[in-house]
C-alpha cells in the first residue's frame, strides 16, 4: 500500500490474491482437524524414530540380544508392551522399527517418483508412438496386483529389507506415471507452455521446468496417501518372509515371529500391528487434508 505503483508489473494487485489463496487453503487445512491429527501423529513418529537411541528403555534389545530370564513376559511397568520370545523389550523394538517403516516409505516413493514421473511426462509431452509404448508398459504394470509383483521381485533379488523396498518401488511407479501423464496432457495446453515452446525452449526445459513444477500439488497428495500403502506392502512382504530377516526390529517381521506364540502370548503380535496402523492412518489423514488444502476435487 505504501509503495507508489509506477511499474507496469504491479505486485500490489497480484500479492493479495495469492495470500488469500494460501490463507484460504490453510483455513481449509485447519478446519480439517483430522489432517492436523495426522500431521501431529506423523511428527511424533518421526521424533520417536530419530530419538530412539536416547528414549528407548532397552537400546541393547534391537539386535540379537537374548535374555533367558524374561522371555515372553506380558506387559508390565518394567516392559510396557511386554517382551518377545528372546526376552527383548517390544517397546524398544517398535521405536527402532519406526525408522525402518519411514525409510520404506521414503525409498519406495523416491524410486516411484524418479521412474514414474519422467515416464508420464515424456509420454504425455511427445504423444504418438512414444506415448503408446510407454503407457502400454504402464498398463501392464498396473494390471498386476502390487503385492504379488513386489513379492516376486523381492524374492528374485534375494530376501532382504532393502531389496523389498526397491521391489515395491519398481512396482509402485505406475501410479505416478499415470498422474504425470494426465497432468502433462492438460498442462501442455496452457499458455505459458505454448509460449515457452514458441520461444524455442528445449523439450527438456519445457517438460522439467515449465510442466513439472505445476503438477507438484497432485503429486504431493499422492505421495502422502501412497506412503501408507508402501508401508503396508513393505510390512506384508516382511511378514511373508521375503523382506527383513531376524533379528531386525521390523514391524511385519516382529508380527511373523510373534505369531508362533499365539494364542497365549498375544503382545508380541498385537503391538507392532497397532504401530503399523497408527503410522499408515497418519499418512492417510494427512493426505486427505492435503487434498482439501490444494482444493483438488
Amino acid at each position: 500500500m505504501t509503495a507508489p505503483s509506477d511499474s507496469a508489473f504491479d505486485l500490489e494487485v497480484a500479492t493479495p490474491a495469492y495470500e488469500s489463496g494460501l490463507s484460504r487453503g490453510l483455513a481449509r487445512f485447519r478446519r480439517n482437524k483430522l489432517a492436523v491429527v495426522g500431521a501431529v501423529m506423523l511428527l511424533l513418529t518421526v521424533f520417536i524414530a530419530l530419538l530412539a537411541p536416547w528414549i528407548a528403555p532397552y537400546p541393547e534389545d534391537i539386535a540379537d540380544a537374548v535374555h533367558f530370564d524374561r522371555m515372553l513376559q506380558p506387559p508390565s511397568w518394567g516392559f510396557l508392551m511386554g517382551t518377545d520370545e528372546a526376552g527383548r523389550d517390544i517397546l524398544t523394538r517398535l521405536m527402532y522399527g519406526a525408522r525402518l517403516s519411514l525409510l520404506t516409505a521414503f525409498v519406495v516413493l523416491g524410486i516411484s517418483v524418479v521412474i514414474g514421473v519422467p515416464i508420464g511426462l515424456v509420454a504425455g509431452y511427445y504423444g504418438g508412438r512414444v506415448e503408446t509404448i510407454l503407457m502400454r508398459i504402464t498398463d501392464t504394470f498396473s494390471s498386476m496386483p502390487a503385492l504379488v509383483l513386489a513379492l516376486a521381485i523381492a524374492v528374485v533379488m534375494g530376501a532382504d529389507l532393502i531389496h523389498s523396498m526397491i521391489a515395491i518401488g519398481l512396482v509402485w511407479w505406475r501410479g505416478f506415471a499415470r498422474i504425470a501423464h494426465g497432468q502433462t496432457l492438460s498442462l501442455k495446453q496452457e499458455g505459458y507452455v505454448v509460449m515457452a515452446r514458441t520461444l524455442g525452449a528445449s523439450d527438456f526445459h519445457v517438460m522439467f521446468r515449465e510442466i513439472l513444477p505445476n503438477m507438484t500439488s497432485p503429486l504431493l497428495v499422492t505421495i502422502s496417501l501412497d506412503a501408507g500403502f508402501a508401508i503396508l506392502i513393505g510390512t506384508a512382504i516382511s511378514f511373508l518372509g521375503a523382506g527383513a530377516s531376524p533379528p531386525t526390529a521390523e514391524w511385519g517381521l516382529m508380527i511373523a515371529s510373534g505369531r508362533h506364540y499365539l494364542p497365549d502370548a498375544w503382545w508380541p503380535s498385537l503391538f507392532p500391528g497397532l504401530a503399523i496402523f497408527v503410522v499408515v492412518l497418519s499418512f492417510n489423514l494427512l493426505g486427505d487434508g492435503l487434498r482439501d488444502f490444494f482444493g483438488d476435487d
Partner: protein
Amino acid sequence: MRFLKRLSHMLLVLVGVSILMFTLVRVIPGDPVAAALGDGVSREEIARIRQQMGLDRSIPVQYVHYIGGILNGHFGMSLTEPKDVGEIIAERLPATLELVTVAMLVAIAFGVPFGVISAVNRNGATDHVSRMVSLFGVSFPQFWVALMLQLWLGAWLLLVPITGRSGLPPAEPITGFLLLDSLLKLDLAAFGDALRHILVPALVLAVGPLANVTRLVRASMIDELGKPYIALNRAVGMPSFLINYKYALRNASLSALTVVGFLFPLMLGSAFVVEKVFVWPGIARFGADAIIANDFNAVVGVALVVCVFVVVINFLVDELYGWIDPRIRLSAEP
C-alpha cells in the same frame, strides 16, 4: 470394432505380463536350479536337471517354449511338489476363487449401503462415522487383522475354526466350491462347516475393499444427487426416499460396478497374506510358500494366473459397463 480394439489391447497387456514375469524369474536370478537344490549337489546333477527343464536353451526359445506349454496347461514342474505347477494351480484355484467371491459379496453388501447412507446424510453424523470407518479400514495391515481375528474369534471365543477350509473328510467335488457343492448335494452340515471356515478369512479380505466401495459409492451418489433431474424431482415434490433410492442409487450403482474391476486385483493380492494366516489351501498360499522356497516355476505360474484373471475380469467389467449404460457405449463409439 471397439470390442476388437479393446480385445487386442487386453491381449497385448497379457503378453506384456508374461514377458515381465518370465524375465523376472528366468533372466535375473541366475541359476534357479542350484538355488533350489542348495549345496552338496554335483555339477553334473545340476546340468542334467537344467537340461531336463530346458534351462540350457536361449532365453527367447525358453519363452516361446514356456508360452506354448502354458497354452497346453503345462506350467513346468514345481520344485516343491513333484507335479506340474499347472496341475497344482488347477486343484487349488477353486479355493481361492470361492474365498475372493465371498469376500467381494461381503464388501459390496456392506459397502454400498454405507456409501448411500453416507451420501444422503452428507456431512451428517452418519457420514462422518462412515468416512472414519472407511479411513480406518484402509489403514489396517490385513495380515495383522487376520491374526487378531483368528486369535479372538477362533482361539479365545472358539466361535470359528482357526485354519483350513473344511473340517470334514474331502468329498467328491462338483464345482470345487465347497459352499456350492454342499448346497447342490443338499448337505447342510457340510454347508455350515464350509461357511464357518470361510467366514473370518472372507471378512478379513473384505475389510480394505469394503472401505473402498463405501468411498466410491459415496462419491458417485453425491455426484448423482447434484444433477439437475434430482433438483427437478425435488421441486415437483417427489418424496426424498424415492429420489434417493429409486433414481440416484440406480444411476450411481452403475459406477459401483467398476468396483468389482478394481477390487479383484486388490483382493487377489491380499489373498497371499490371508491364505497364509488361515492356512487356506488356495493358489495364493501356494504362491506365498513357493516364493519362500525359490520355486520359480510356481511363482511365475501363480503370478501369471492371478494377472490373467485380473486383466480378463477388468475387460469383462468394462464391456458389461458399456453394455448396461448406453451413454458410455455410444460416447466411446468413434
